[in-house]
């Protein structure tokens, strides 16, 4: 069932276009992340959904009802949404309980029910003991949970999360993103999550929209996004990619140093591009020439290496000098700089991609 639809929304501040004719449709109960570097327009998009910013063009619809367009505008307080802010925005003059109950008070929920629902949600986020504390008496993680409780207790139509974990330290961030996903599974609220952190988006989301310069480059589930990036931008933004140049010649594609039959690239439809993505994890490294199965095996030598803790990052040059590749290997596969090696590539991992539309 379709819940939220953004149709061609744009936002211009003077001459600067921050969001450029963006389209997005969400099912009820879906969790979608807007992922991109700072300045890509993701927060502006979120704030247009919330109603803090009016779009310059396009419409925002909830359950088929128009919320924002260039000529009509429903203020945020009438949208029945919730939002988690980067700073949590807990009101320091109110206790945890008063903070959480505020939305219910605005919805004129009867006193008795208000108390019950507030207590329930505080138990859900494991803060029942701290109901009478003030926000500044809580740790960062506890404040975050209060802000989650405050947002969830009103059973919002849509939950908006604006980089909610960016003020937490690394360990807590990992714990909280699990918490956010758990609460989403429990309540099934349609959620939009703005972040610049891949890992957060990957672990929490049903679908991720990669944003760049005010547009969605690609929107897919995390696995598809990783395995089948559609553009150079996405390939380079998510994980590590080698971008290969290749020319389509008859039934095959000719890369620098090797050829692959088109059929083995597993591309849907005919290949109409000259660039391809190859994940650095998807390249095997061997000291001796491996048994040549279906893979492509090429000789080369290690040019540079660095140990990143959980993986090795190797830079290597193919023997014919044509191509440099980055390879990510497990810590146990150790090669010296200057050592001759063989690389192994499964052609199915070479993904045809598009140049960026507005590079």
């Amino acid at each position: 069932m379709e819940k939220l639809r953004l149709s061609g929304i744009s936002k211009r501040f003077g001459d600067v276009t921050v969001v450029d004719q963006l389209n997005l449709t969400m099912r009820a109960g879906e969790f979608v992340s807007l992922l991109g570097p700072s300045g890509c327009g993701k927060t502006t998009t979120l704030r247009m959904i919330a109603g803090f910013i009016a779009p310059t063009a396009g419409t925002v619809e909830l359950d088929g009802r128009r919320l924002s367009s260039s000529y009509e505008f429903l203020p945020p307080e009438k949208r029945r949404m919730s939002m988690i802010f980067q700073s949590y925005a807990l009101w320091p003059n109110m206790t945890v309980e008063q903070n959480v109950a505020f939305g219910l008070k605005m919805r004129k929920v009867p006193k008795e029910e208000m108390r019950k629902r507030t207590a329930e949600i505080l138990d859900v986020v494991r803060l029942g003991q701290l109901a009478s504390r003030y926000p500044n008496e809580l740790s960062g993680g506890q404040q975050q949970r209060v802000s989650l409780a405050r947002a969830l207790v009103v059973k919002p139509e849509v939950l908006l999360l604006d980089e909610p974990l960016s003020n937490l330290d690394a360990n807590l961030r990992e714990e909280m993103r699990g918490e956010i996903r758990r609460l989403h599974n429990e309540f099934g609220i349609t959620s939009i999550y703005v972040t610049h952190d891949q890992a957060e988006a990957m672990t929490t989301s049903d679908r991720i929209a990669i944003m760049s310069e005010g547009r969605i480059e690609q929107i897919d589930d995390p696995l598809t996004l990783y395995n089948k990036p559609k553009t150079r931008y996405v390939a380079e933004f998510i994980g590590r990619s080698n971008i290969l140049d290749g020319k389509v010649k008859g039934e095959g594609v000719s890369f620098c140093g090797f050829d692959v039959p088109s059929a083995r690239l597993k591309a849907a439809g005919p290949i109409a591009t000259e660039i391809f993505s190859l994940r650095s994890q998807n390249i095997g490294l061997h000291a001796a020439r491996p048994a040549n199965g279906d893979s492509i095996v090429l000789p080369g030598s290690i040019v540079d290496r660095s140990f990143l803790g959980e993986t090795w990052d190797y830079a290597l040059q193919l023997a014919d000098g044509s191509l440099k590749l980055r390879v990510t290997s497990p810590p146990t596969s150790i090669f010296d700089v200057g050592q001759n090696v063989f690389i192994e590539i499964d052609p199915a991992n070479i993904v045809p991609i598009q140049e960026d539309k507005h590079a």
Partner: protein
Amino acid sequence: MAEITAPIEHETPGRFAILTARVRQFATPTAIVSLLLALLLVFLVANPLFQLVRESLTNAKTGELTFANYLAAFARPRYVQAFINSLQLGVCVAVAAGAIGVPLAWAVSRTDMPWRNIVHGMVIGSFLIPPFVGAIGWILLGGPNAGWINRIYMAVTGASSGPFNIFSFGGLVLVISLYVFPLVYVFTKSALDLVSTEMEEAAAILGSGPASTTLRITLPLVLPSILGSLFIVFLEVLGLFGTAALIAIPAGFNVVTTQLAAFFENPVRVEVAAAFSMPLIVITIVLLGAQRLLLARKGYVTVSGKGGHRSLMRLGAFRWIMLAYAALIGLLSVVAPMYIILQSAFTRAWVKGLTPDNLTLANFYQALVGQPSIRQSLFNTFHYAFWAATICTVLGFAVAYIARRRLLPFASALSSITLAPFAVPGIVLAICFYAAYAPPPFSLYGFGALIVIAFVTRFLPIAFVNSNSAIQGLHPELEEAVRIAGGSQGRAVWNVVLPVLKMSLLGSWLLIFVIGTRELSTAMFLSGPQTRVVSVLTIEMSEQGQYEILSAIAVLLLLVTGIVVAIGTKIVGRDFMLRRT
């Protein structure tokens, strides 16, 4: 460190050796300067305050210890009534100033009211007008018969008398409120400026409309600041002399400050005045303490986190109502009084208004050339303000630096002494200095120096607070880099600290100069015939009804203030005048 660790390997040094090592360790140039400074502070702050207490407990004739002065001060109902009047006045003005200052601060800080910059400028404008100048303006506007408001009313309605009398309790409340509300505005606005918009958005997304958000979220968040500013206003009113002398005395009632002045009329009874002023100090200390507590509560200041942005509340048609309110306040506090003062400065008789045969420059001629006493007091005013500002800035910086960098073991005591004058109303400070330095052995009465040192004491806290926050923003590593490169502490101050802080110090100098030119209550009892300042002269000339020359003097004073503030704004930055507290 070498002296301390070395003896362990050799033999234990004698006590005398340790003592001389200690002395050598502390007898550095820095320490000597610091000690001199401490002595100076005792002279400027501690001794006068001590003399006030001593005076209040001493029989003026016999020099014996006595409580009779307190009896004399509080036995008469008339004197007690002055206290009650002051307290009532303080409460009324605090309420009125709140009603003016809070809405304006909110409108300028959080809403899309048009012309917010102009409204802000108007508030700063009324902040810059010396209260006694505003009071003169209002006497010309609201005097019972000749006042312009009443004459316009009579002209329009044909009535034989006007309804408005500035010489009344209500009139006094109005005039004081119009020039003290900027304090509420400044405190409230700076608190509102710190409230993250996300606080309001969080309420909006949960279903709270603009009005509900303002009342339930925004205002409660800044309530401590508002209450704190009302306390400050209350204290300001309690110690205010000029406006009270100009309006309350003709109206026929006394407040604490005018009563204190009465004790200084012949025969001068300093000891009774000292006793009478004690409750003022107590009230001040209590309220200042309460204000500190309020602002410290619950970590109220909510500086927006990163990504914090601000958006303004849309008021719709209501924004024009807010603007009209701001315009009315601007009219009452700045436009109307200043217009009337300008007009009378250029006329022969202020009641006749702007007619060709009434226009003249004679008032300015009289003020600058014709009457030597006026010229002398104009010169005195700027002369004393210059020296007070200079000494204050140097002292304030020195104390702040020593305290911040802990150059002396008792540095924090030094800063407490420096801040102590905050708790003493100007008029009480004048009594302190009168008691401490007018009689022998100092016999300073009649010398400009007495006024300058009283001003220095009065404004020292401002200079200290300014320097302190500037030094706070300066990383000690800058100086440590000088030391490790072979420079002395003095060189670090001269070559690094002072050049870096010169703008803040200049700002603090200009600020003290401006408020020094208008200081009335501190100068009140300390100025002799040759050492009169403009503010004191104003009170005398108002009693004599010389409003035209008075207006010309006010114009000159405002002109100089305007120029200094313009220079300050240009060099130091907007709003440097607001760094008073």
